[in-house]
């Protein structure tokens, strides 16, 4: 027997396209146009999951995104956890299973692509139900750029479920599709509403095609939409009531049952009892009856209702059946009971306007006692309009008229003039106002469920209020009501109502919990879009990158840069390679690609004055042709960056920054120039990628340079330390600086970025006889640490002054002011027991972990921490740098490093461990 609960005809499913699928291990058939839930119901499968905490059987409860029960895991073709069967479109080959509240991520990488689009429009309409369609059509008639989005595969909204005016829906949809400035996005859920009408939506593009999804299309796309005006036509969700065993499979929202009959041609049961607080359930009952469902009785909780169809004032006292509803015990207003056989209990506890996006937009939801629900209060400051059921209007004629009116107003507000559109005739029958009912009398509160997905009962809520909680926000966090991925769509207002009853306050005074993005679950893959893997962040490489690769370099990430870390030879580990590279730099000659150093060209008549204000030392006295090391501080006196300043002409300097700080230093300069010193005539330009820089280091570096720069006087007297020359190197225009970051005789050779490889090869050839050795950042770090040169950001952390680093010599005493100067005389910066940079020699010769804490022996008191730690070829041992409280006074003493397996004694030394006299600098 196939699809025993499918009607012979009717519905919007494509009966010519049968689809096979598996659920919990069994094979079923459905049709294109089904959801997994409607296909399961067609096959008589109502029980779809067990509940999270209590493991109670649960059935399909709704027909849409508000579903609390039917949580499934898709296994094939694409593994996805925690989807609702009511929102999964059926496709052939779908394999799913029920979940008890917890999903499982796939172990395999996701092969699908995800994408994102930035879009702008004049009017964004969210929701393509009657109000949204009318709004979009009206706005589009003005010529405004309109985007209409809806989470369903086709426009129509509630009309798809009621089966009304579908011709009009098709006509409007066709007009919108043809409108040149209008974009209709189906299968698209707006999940975030941010400042200034910035709306984020996720579009499910190919998931509904299953294994047939074309590989060249992205599976999901995120839309980031900036709209001048927004029309919220997000509709309403039906809510439940708290009565005993209101969670049994077969208890279903009345409107959902109507949708299954009209849209999917599926009977959710054979014989139904209806329980309602409002008129909408009658239309559902009529449609179900017409389709062949026997309506056993209608219990209307409004005592005064007189329509001949219902039992006025009757309630549900008990639900029989565990796996599925078998009978319902009704209770009359005077307490008389009546048991009615039924396999379906249709519930309508009223309708909640979907106010989540309005709330995210900064609007308030206020309780409307006539509506018995919270709805937008109309006071949101963003440029938005609310139309239809989202604003609490439930009659179709009103929804259509409001939609057209709000669409017109939105277009008008965006500067367009809308023409009218043709709306279908919709008679809004006069009815009986709804009643706001929360808990039905009698029954065990421990099985009266307020939040089905979180298994939160009236008893749980009473426990929360019993502890003294008076705010729904507290009750929410204590009971977890409303925190499941359905976000309390069917249970949230009910929870507020029950809590209000328990506290004896008005539900309007109690309020609801706050709605925050995302409105619906959205995958991280969709949010990441193309920003993953290689495209996650730009990768910057130097002009020599390919050559480093052919040298066999391993790379280190420094900001976005890839820098050679070390160059292992066959069979060499990192320690071996670094020791070899260090030896070459100290004993022969070595070279490094230093192109990533930040370089800023500072020009203008006031450039010298400007740099005097920025650096702690005096820059303006520098002669053209000379170089000075400089330190920059923040106004609080803490070191921000360091580097060299070379003076090119009277009005032009080239300053270098640390690799990671290049952009920050340029920002810093521009900020001071623009905001504090606009009178200074100075311009700053980043030239980091104009110049490739190779550091040539070691006692043999002079010989190598002489060989490739025949026109340059490289003698000690002719080319002094901290000067620079423009010359030809390897036939290239080059600027050579006598700078050393290792303590050895060294040069930094700058050429055009394009010429870097020519320079590199020339140096390799010229240095071959001396065993010239390329070295990476690790060796650079060891060499500089042996000399006690700090790395800003590694040996400092924003709480370190130049004096703490032993750089007091670089702080001018002559300048009246510079950034940070005043802070050096603050009580705190003048303390003698500040943390100071020192060297450490581990007594046992071990390598200290960077970050290890340093303490006194007994009692243990924290003195500081290890900032840098290496093996030194030159020292023949391990050593470290550290920031140590009162460190310079502890030189020669023992402190203790805390390691995982205990304390290790280390001897404190000065920070300069190698060649403290500086004898090697000039070769």
């Amino acid at each position, binding site marked *: 027997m196939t699809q025993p609960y499918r009607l012979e005809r009717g519905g919007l499913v494509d009966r010519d396209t049968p689809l096979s699928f598996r659920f919990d291990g069994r094979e079923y058939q459905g049709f294109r146009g089904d959801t997994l839930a409607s296909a399961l119901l067609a096959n008589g499968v109502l029980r779809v999951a067990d509940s999270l905490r209590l493991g109670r059987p649960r059935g399909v409860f709704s027909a849409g995104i508000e579903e609390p029960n039917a949580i499934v895991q898709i296994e094939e073709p694409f593994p996805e956890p925690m989807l609702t069967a009511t929102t999964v479109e059926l496709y052939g080959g779908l394999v799913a299973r029920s979940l008890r509240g917890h999903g499982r991520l796939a172990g395999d990488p996701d092969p699908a692509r995800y994408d994102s689009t930035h879009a702008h429009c004049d009017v964004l309409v969210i929701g393509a139900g009657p109000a949204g369609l009318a709004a979009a059509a009206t706005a589009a008639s003005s010529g405004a750029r309109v985007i209409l989005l809806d989470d369903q595969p086709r426009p129509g909204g509630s009309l798809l479920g009621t089966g009304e005016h579908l011709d009009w829906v098709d006509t409007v949809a066709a007009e919108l599709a043809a409108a040149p400035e209008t974009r209709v996005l189906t299968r698209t859920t707006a999940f975030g509403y*941010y*400042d*200034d009408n*910035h709306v984020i939506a996720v579009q499910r593009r190919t998931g509904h095609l299953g294994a047939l999804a074309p590989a060249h299309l992205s599976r999901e796309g995120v839309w980031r939409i*900036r709209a001048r005006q927004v029309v919220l036509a997000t509709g309403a969700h039906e809510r439940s009531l708290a009565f005993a065993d209101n969670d049994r499979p077969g208890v279903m929202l009345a409107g959902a049952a109507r949708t299954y009959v009209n849209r999917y041609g599926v009977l959710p049961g054979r014989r139904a009892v209806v329980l309602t607080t409002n008129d909408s359930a009658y239309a559902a009952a009529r449609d179900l009856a017409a389709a062949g469902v026997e309506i056993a009785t209608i219990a209307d909780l409004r005592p005064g209702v007189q329509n001949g169809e219902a039992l006025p004032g009757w309630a549900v006292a008990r639900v029989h059946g565990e796996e599925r509803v078998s009978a319902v015990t009704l209770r009359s207003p005077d307490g008389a009971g009546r048991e009615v056989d039924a396999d379906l209990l249709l519930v309508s506890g009223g309708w909640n306007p979907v106010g989540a996006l309005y709330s995210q937009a*900064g609007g308030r939801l206020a309780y409307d006692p006539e509506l018995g629900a919270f709805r937008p209060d109309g006071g949101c*400051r963003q440029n938005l309009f609310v139309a239809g059921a989202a604003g609490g209007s439930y009659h179709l004629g009103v929804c259509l008229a409001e939609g057209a009116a709000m669409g017109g107003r939105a277009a008008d507000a965006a500067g367009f003039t809308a023409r009218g559109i043709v709306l279908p005739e919709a008679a809004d029958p006069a009815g009986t106002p709804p009643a706001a009912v929360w808990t039905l009398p009698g029954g065990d509160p421990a099985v009266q469920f307020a939040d089905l997905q979180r298994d939160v009962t009236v008893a749980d809520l009473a426990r929360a209020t019993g502890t003294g909680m008076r705010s729904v926000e507290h009750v929410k966090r204590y009971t977890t009501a409303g925190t499941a991925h359905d976000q309390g769509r069917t249970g949230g207002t009910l929870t507020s109502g029950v809590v209000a009853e328990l506290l004896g306050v008005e539900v309007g005074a109690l309020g609801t919990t706050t709605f925050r993005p995302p409105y619906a679950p959205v995958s991280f893959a969709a949010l990441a879009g193309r920003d993953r893997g290689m495209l996650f962040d730009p990768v910057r490489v130097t002009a020599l990158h390919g050559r480093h690769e052919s040298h066999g370099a391993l790379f280190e990430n420094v900001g976005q840069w890839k820098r050679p870390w070390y160059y292992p030879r066959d069979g060499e580990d990192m320690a071996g390679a670094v020791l070899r590279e260090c030896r070459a730099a100290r004993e022969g000659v070595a070279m490094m690609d230093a192109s990533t150093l930040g370089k800023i060209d500072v020009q203008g008549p006031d450039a010298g004055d400007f740099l005097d204000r920025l650096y702690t030392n005096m820059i303006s006295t520098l002669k053209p042709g000379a170089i000075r090391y400089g330190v920059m501080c923040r*106004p*609080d006196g803490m070191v921000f960056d360091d580097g060299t300043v070379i003076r090119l002409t009277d009005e032009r300097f080239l300053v270098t920054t640390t690799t990671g700080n290049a952009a920050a230093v340029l*920002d810093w300069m*521009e*900020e001071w120039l*623009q*905001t*504090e010193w606009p009178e200074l005539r100075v311009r700053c330009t980043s030239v980091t990628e104009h110049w490739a820089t190779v550091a040539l280091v070691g006692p043999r570096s002079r010989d190598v340079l002489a060989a490739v720069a025949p026109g340059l006087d490289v003698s000690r007297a002719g080319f002094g330390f901290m000067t620079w020359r423009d010359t030809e190197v390897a036939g290239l225009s080059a600027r050579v600086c006598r700078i050393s970051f290792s303590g050895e005789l060294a040069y930094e050779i700058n050429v055009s970025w394009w010429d870097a490889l020519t320079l590199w090869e020339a140096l390799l050839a010229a240095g071959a006889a001396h065993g010239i050795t390329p070295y990476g950042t690790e060796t650079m770090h060891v060499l500089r640490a042996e000399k006690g040169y700090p790395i800003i950001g590694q040996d400092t952390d924003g709480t370190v002054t130049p004096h703490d680093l032993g750089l007091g010599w670089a702080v001018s005493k002559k300048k*009246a*002011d510079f950034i940070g*100067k*005043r*802070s050096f005389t*603050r*009580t705190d910066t003048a303390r003698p027991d500040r943390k100071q940079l020192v060297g450490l020699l581990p007594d046992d010769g071990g390598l200290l972990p960077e970050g290890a804490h340093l303490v006194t022996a007994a009692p243990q008191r924290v003195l500081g921490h290890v900032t840098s730690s290496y093996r030194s070829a030159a020292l023949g041992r391990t050593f470290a740098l550290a920031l140590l409280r009162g460190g310079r006074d502890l030189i020669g003493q023992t402190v203790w490093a805390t390691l995982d397996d205990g304390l290790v004694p280390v001897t404190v030394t000065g920070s300069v461990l190698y060649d403290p006299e500086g004898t090697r600098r000039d070769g």
Partner: protein
Amino acid sequence: MMLIPCPWCGPRDESEFHYGGQAGVAYPADPAALSDAEWARYLFFRDNPKGPFRERWSHSAGCRRWFSLVRDTVTNEVLS
């Protein structure tokens, strides 16, 4: 995401900007003349109002110019 009116480029996404904190906190004319407390007030003390707040922004991914605006810190509305 806020839409911030750059005086030079027009309204642009917040992600193009860099926040600069309270506006109108000038670098003291003569820091040396200030007491430690006065200097600390310049360094560390900023207003944190609930409501209108004049603050600095830099269009760092655009024209790179600094400017001030008044933002309501409750609603993120740019008032001027």
